[in-house]
């Protein structure tokens, strides 16, 4: 979407300008803020909206996605010279599906409760556009270390964004944060925030905040 054509542009100022000299650090840093997968690129939206009704779910989903992202970027960059060009997308999807199956079974063995609340969305990490786009746009063209750093940065940026949404929705919709009550008993929950519509609204509000700061930086 509107973020995608912005990816290749280098910005020269920014808050991390002092780190620009070392390329490897930059691969890591860019996913956190400048190319944040959700707030800037606006990709991988389905889990973002669906499982961020509580902060715990959001954190678990973010970590699972980040783990798959790192593993698949690692394997894709190792295999990048062996995969024929015509079947690369299919091969990437198979690699991603393998890791997602591993994560799926791992979560099931760690916590059945968490597994139930995330539901089919763990399996649906396979079709998260973020992972495929990093494999295609970055890992297939760059070295192993760089690809892993890129995946780590993007993954942490993704977890951060999911937490932003999950925290707001749980706090307003349930009056708790990580299942700890924050407000007094008299607090009237905004049920709308944990319903689907609340997901759209919360994301819209966060994007507005990000746009506001982006416009402000541009002006000054």
């Amino acid at each position: 979407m509107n973020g995608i054509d912005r990816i290749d542009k280098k910005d020269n100022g920014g808050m991390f300008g002092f780190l620009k000299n070392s390329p490897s650090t930059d691969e890591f840093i860019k996913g956190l803020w400048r190319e944040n997968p959700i707030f800037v690129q606006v990709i991988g939206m389905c889990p973002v909206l669906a499982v961020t009704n509580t902060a715990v779910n959001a954190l678990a989903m973010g970590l699972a996605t980040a783990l798959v992202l790192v593993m698949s970027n690692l394997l894709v960059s190792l295999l990048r010279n062996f995969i024929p060009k015509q079947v690369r997308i299919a091969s990437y999807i198979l690699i991603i599906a393998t890791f997602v199956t591993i994560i799926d079974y791992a979560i099931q063995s760690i916590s059945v409760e968490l597994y139930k609340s995330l539901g089919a969305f763990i399996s649906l990490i396979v079709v998260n556009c973020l992972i495929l786009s990093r494999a295609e746009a970055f890992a297939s063209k760059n070295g192993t270390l760089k690809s892993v750093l890129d995946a780590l940065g993007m993954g942490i940026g993704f977890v951060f964004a999911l937490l932003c949404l999950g925290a707001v929705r749980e706090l307003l919709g349930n009056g708790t944060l990580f299942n700890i009550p924050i407000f007094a008993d008299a607090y009237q929950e905004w049920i709308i925030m944990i319903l689907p519509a609340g997901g759209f609204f919360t994301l819209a509000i966060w994007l507005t905040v990000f746009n506001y700061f982006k416009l402000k930086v541009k002006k000054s």
Partner: protein
Amino acid sequence: MNEEPLWSIFINASLINNFVLAYFLGICPFLGVSGKIGTASKMGGAVTFVMIISSMAAYGLHGLLVAINAPFLQLISYIVVIASTVQLVEMIIKKISPELFRALGIFLPLITTNCAILGLALFQTSKGYGFLQSFVYALGAGAGFTLALILMAGIRENLEFAQVPKVVKGTVITLLAAGILSLSFMGFSGLSG
């Protein structure tokens, strides 16, 4: 075996638990190709077609995987079937209407990574639907997806002429409209019960 009647499956998948507005599946094409009503309806048609084919294939595959006792291959085999169906649809559309092929652009191959399709295959398996039930479920989900896409396109065509503040232009205003649409779809929940 699930005994749910067919009409109830259809209403459920298309309106009450609309894949886009209640389950958040297929958000990327929902935000990406909902600019014009014409493109949106054709995209909806293509997605519905892929849904029906892959749902049928998933039903068969599930039986096979149960028979050879390999449930861990479920995800991998489903995604391979979906990817090949999308490839097929892509070739058909390219042959029949190059114009539509250009209009859909990158979003056509991206149907592969449309969570609504994989989600449909996974949900029908976990709900234990039979062959006919799966078919109706896919039809309902496709109809619901197309409906949401066309409604959104109608809203966005009107938004083109609205005076929108710079800070909420583009994605943000689309998300707000989607939220309101989702609220109105909640009204359908009274249909179940």
